[in-house]
């Protein structure tokens, strides 16, 4: 009997860490108690996207959206809604500015403005069940290419769609496949790049966790197009759930004959293996990734000869990102024309002529609705941050959004109406990157942010080429100096010169894009650097060496809260009389500032 209700419970990593599995257990118990187990199905799904509100349960077919559930809520929820049919308001989502909750998922602003292609199955299928994927047109595109298209036609279709690499490079996928197919070699390979390394980025992980078969199907189609028999998935160790679901998906596909020898009886052989990387940032770079896959040290090489000609084991190799591959089956089924009608520019003559389709972003940082969003290319950054992201928490002021991961750039408010598009973002001094988006507000110091990312990259630089290794070290030194209040007159010039040299001379894209956080902040927030250096001032109150905490005697009520919390015990004063901070012992931890209920602590 088909189930009357389907409880779609998110089991992406974010919801799992918010105890989604405990919720499942509690639901099972309560549903059994009310004898509903033949009517109500519990379906674990991949990431639903609205990570800020996890754990999430969506009740279908009505689309009722429940959020932030705890095991304590379950008995009431099961009895009220699933038995008695009364949706429970108190577990529904309520946007910050509204009093009334929004019951139905499709009406929540976060979901309303999204357009799902790569994430088409999110929240709808159980990622550990291949039949669910098949029901949603899974492996239909593979059957189509094997029975009715030549490899050249597949390449033509993908090229015409304008699909460009979603890992950040933005190279037209169809062109890459064409070059690889044309290259002579003993064997051809297809690799899926699942080495998502940007801090704050989790698009690829969520696609794998939520819909691993869409990636496998994309790989099989790519293999057919370029003439490969073997594929590899390079995925980082830090993604255990993704690794598990990939392996399960591969086994299920093999059992059905959708991978392996003579796929679907069409005479096409292709199989996939999962290879785990140790999580080095540089291993997301094509040549470093392939070196690591071969068991060598993950270092990039100069690309006079491209990997499409001599990649893995010096054979022609196609390397595509997870999201790129997840788009492929849909393009094959719905056609290049449909895909290229979404997004910006015109790709009919020139595959670089625009940015078509959608892009998945992981929205993180100082934004209300952190989570995973898929939007059509060309949408403005403002729409992503404010309409979908719900704006900045606590009524703070937006400062900048960083796109493209650690080596992306910061985009200021004046450019928020910029369309999301490979070329527009590069022009603004940032990049699309893999789709990480970190929002910062007025409480974040721009120099400190640049320092954080440069320090991250310094640690991740493989050290093979001098501009990247030494350039990052020198930049880090200067930025740390500025944050400590020891900035020198010519530091800004030095940073710019170092940045330019790294862009021009680095061996791979890591070094070539590493100065972006510094160069873009110098371009848009130069005055903050100057304040740090010349006035020894940090307007956001982040750089400890540049700030002092004092107590306003007018406002202080002498409640003693700050004095009791101060780890240095350097706040003195009698009860009910204004207190004082001993500056010589203050470590500027900011605890007094945070705990004062009367705004009496001044941070300057």
């Amino acid at each position, binding site marked *: 009997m088909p*189930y009357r209700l389907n409880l779609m419970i998110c089991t992406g990593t974010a919801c799992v860490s918010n105890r989604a599995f405990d919720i499942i257990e509690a639901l099972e118990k309560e549903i059994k108690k009310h004898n509903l187990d033949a*009517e109500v199905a519990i379906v674990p799904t991949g990431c639903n996207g609205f990570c800020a509100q996890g754990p999430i349960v969506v009740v279908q077919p009505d689309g009722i959206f429940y959020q932030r559930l705890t095991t304590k809520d379950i008995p009431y929820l099961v009895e009220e809604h699933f038995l*008695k049919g*009364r949706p429970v308001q108190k577990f529904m989502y309520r946007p910050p500015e509204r009093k009334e909750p929004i019951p139905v998922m*499709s009406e929540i602003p976060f979901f309303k403005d999204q357009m799902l292609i790569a994430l088409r199955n999110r929240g*709808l299928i159980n990622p550990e069940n291949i039949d*669910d994927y*098949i029901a949603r047109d899974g492996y239909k595109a593979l059957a189509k290419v094997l029975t009715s298209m030549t490899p050249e036609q597949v390449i033509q279709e993908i090229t015409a769609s304008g699909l460009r690499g979603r890992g950040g490079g933005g190279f037209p996928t169809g062109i890459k496949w064409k070059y690889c197919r044309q290259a002579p070699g003993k064997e051809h390979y297809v690799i899926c790049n699942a080495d998502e390394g940007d801090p704050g980025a989790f698009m690829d992980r969520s696609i794998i966790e939520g819909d691993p078969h869409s990636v496998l199907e994309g790989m099989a189609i790519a293999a057919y197009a370029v003439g490969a028999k073997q594929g590899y998935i390079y995925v980082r160790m830090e993604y255990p759930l993704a690794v598990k679901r990939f392996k399960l998906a591969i086994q299920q596909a093999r059992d059905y*004959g*959708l991978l392996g020898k003579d796929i679907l009886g069409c005479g096409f052989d292709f199989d996939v293996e999962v290879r785990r990387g140790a999580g080095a940032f540089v291993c997301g770079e094509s040549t470093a990734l392939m070196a690591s896959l071969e068991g060598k040290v993950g270092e990039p090489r100069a690309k006079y000869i491209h990997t499409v000609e001599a990649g893995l084991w010096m054979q022609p190799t196609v390397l595509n990102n997870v999201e790129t591959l997840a788009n492929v089956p849909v393009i094959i089924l719905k056609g290049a024309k449909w895909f290229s009608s979404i997004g910006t520019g015109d790709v009919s003559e020139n595959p670089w002529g625009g940015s078509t389709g959608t892009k998945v972003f992981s929205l993180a940082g100082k934004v209300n609705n952190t989570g995973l969003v898929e939007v059509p290319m060309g949408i403005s950054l403002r729409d992503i941050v404010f309409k979908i992201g719900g704006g900045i928490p606590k009524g703070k002021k937006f400062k900048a959004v960083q796109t493209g991961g650690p080596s992306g750039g910061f985009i200021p408010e004046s450019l928020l109406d910029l369309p999301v598009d490979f070329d527009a973002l590069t022009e603004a001094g940032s990049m699309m990157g893999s789709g990480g988006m970190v929002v910062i507000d007025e409480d974040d110091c721009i120099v400190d942010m640049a320092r954080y990312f440069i320090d991250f990259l310094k640690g991740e630089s493989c050290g093979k080429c001098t501009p990247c290794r030494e350039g990052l070290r020198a930049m880090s030194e200067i930025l740390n100096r500025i944050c400590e209040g020891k900035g020198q007159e010519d530091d800004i010039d030095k940073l710019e010169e170092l940045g330019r040299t790294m862009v021009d001379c680095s061996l791979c894209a890591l070094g070539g894009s590493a100065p972006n956080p510094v160069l873009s902040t110098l371009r848009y927030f130069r005055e903050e650097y100057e304040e740090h250096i010349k006035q020894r001032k940090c307007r956001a109150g982040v750089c400890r060496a540049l700030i002092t905490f004092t107590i306003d005697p007018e406002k202080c009520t002498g409640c003693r809260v700050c004095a009791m919390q101060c780890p240095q015990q350097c706040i003195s004063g009698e009860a009910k009389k204004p207190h004082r901070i001993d500056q010589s012992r203050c470590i500027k931890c900011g605890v007094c500032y945070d705990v004062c209920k009367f705004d009496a602590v001044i941070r300057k």
Partner: protein
Amino acid sequence: MGKLTIQELEKLREKAREQLKLRTTGETRGKIIVHMGTCGISAGARDVLSALLEAIEKKGIKDIIVTTSGCAGMCSREPMATVELAGQPPVKYVDLDKDKIVRILEEHVIGGKIVKEYALGIGSERVG
């Protein structure tokens, strides 16, 4: 299951679709709401719901959603159900049992003719 051919893949897809159908908030011809307040349950609404689900499966009906809701306010006439077909005003049925709900399914939902003997009235209370 062993290795699939193209035809077998399509067959499997058809079968799997059935299970997935109710997971989307897609287009349907209408829905049958069984009122499951405490009053309804004690009057036998559970049996009515089970009989309805069974009949729907037996007849292979795919475009009707079965859902539940709370007490409809007339506890003395429970079990109750409301039939809402697209483009038509909802019809409330009262004093139901296993056989009556199946007849409603056959005559009203499939046949398009309201079962007047069991119907309380057409339309809903004004809300707001």
